[in-house]
């Protein structure tokens, strides 16, 4: 099971890196500079649901480091890793304690808001200007839509991945014997 889990996590990380690199080359038609679709958060949310908090943090850190090597944007690293860590933490809290109220869409919206707050905090430290927080309302408004679609995608993916994982756990017993 351990090797299987590592395999799955690395597959998820690879998917996340692909999404990260692809989305960094998609221009977002909004007035806000630096706004991204946040597709890579699908990966964080899926890992959180399927494998738990620890694995999600590991996936987030690995994805950010490797994707930075891929895109070459070193300053972007601090933005993406702070956002990924903080949003994963918030999503875990919401998913664990409020999952009876919110579906994955709500969890993902919380995550995208946390992502924005963490990134703007890092940005305000980097440029020594707390006035960048005036971006927060419009960023959150935009992230509402991306968060909604990230949640929707995660619902579909986790539904199928849960089946695959449970099937493989059953069949692994037989494959090990043979």
């Amino acid at each position, binding site marked *: 099971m351990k090797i299987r889990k590592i395999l799955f996590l690395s597959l998820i990380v690879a998917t996340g890196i692909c999404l990260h690199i692809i989305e960094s080359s998609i221009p977002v038609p909004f007035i806000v500079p630096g706004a991204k679709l946040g597709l890579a958060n699908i990966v964080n949310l899926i890992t959180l649901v399927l494998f738990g908090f620890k694995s999600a943090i590991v996936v987030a850190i690995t994805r950010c480091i490797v994707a930075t090597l891929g895109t070459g944007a070193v300053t972007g690293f601090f933005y993406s890793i702070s956002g990924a860590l903080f949003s994963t933490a918030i999503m875990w809290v919401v998913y664990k304690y409020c999952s009876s109220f*919110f579906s994955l869409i709500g969890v993902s919206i*919380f995550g995208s808001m946390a992502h924005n707050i963490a990134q703007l905090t890092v940005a305000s430290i980097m440029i*020594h200007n707390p006035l960048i927080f005036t971006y927060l309302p419009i960023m*959150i*408004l935009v992230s509402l839509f991306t968060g909604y679609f990230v949640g929707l995608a995660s619902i579909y993916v986790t539904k199928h991945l849960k089946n695959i994982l449970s099937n493989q756990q059953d069949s692994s017993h037989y494959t090990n014997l043979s």
Partner: protein
Amino acid sequence: MTKWDKLLIITVVFLSTLGMFYVKSISTNSDNLYLAIEVDGKPYKTISLGGSPKNQLITVETPAGINLIEVEGNRVRIKEADCRDQLCVKTGWLSRANQISICLPNRVSIKLIGGKEDDIDIISY
């Protein structure tokens, strides 16, 4: 999609729209430039710019001489001075925060002070 999700979305839309209006109301107020006139190192007069689009002439009389300061919209200059070198007149218009024009013989200086500190020219991503 539960009803709490919908409630969350509505709350977030409401709060962020409210926040956008709040930010807009702050940013229009804090964008003002101030003109600070100093004579002999002491503050003489402070004027808020941007409020009046028409020209405004201020005469500063000191024992050493007379300076005529012209305010036009968001920019300021020393229009006339009765000093010898006329450096302050040649400095021309001041339009951005922390720009300064000094008439040393008359000990008059004018300086633009920004409503907010603006050290950064541009941010690139």
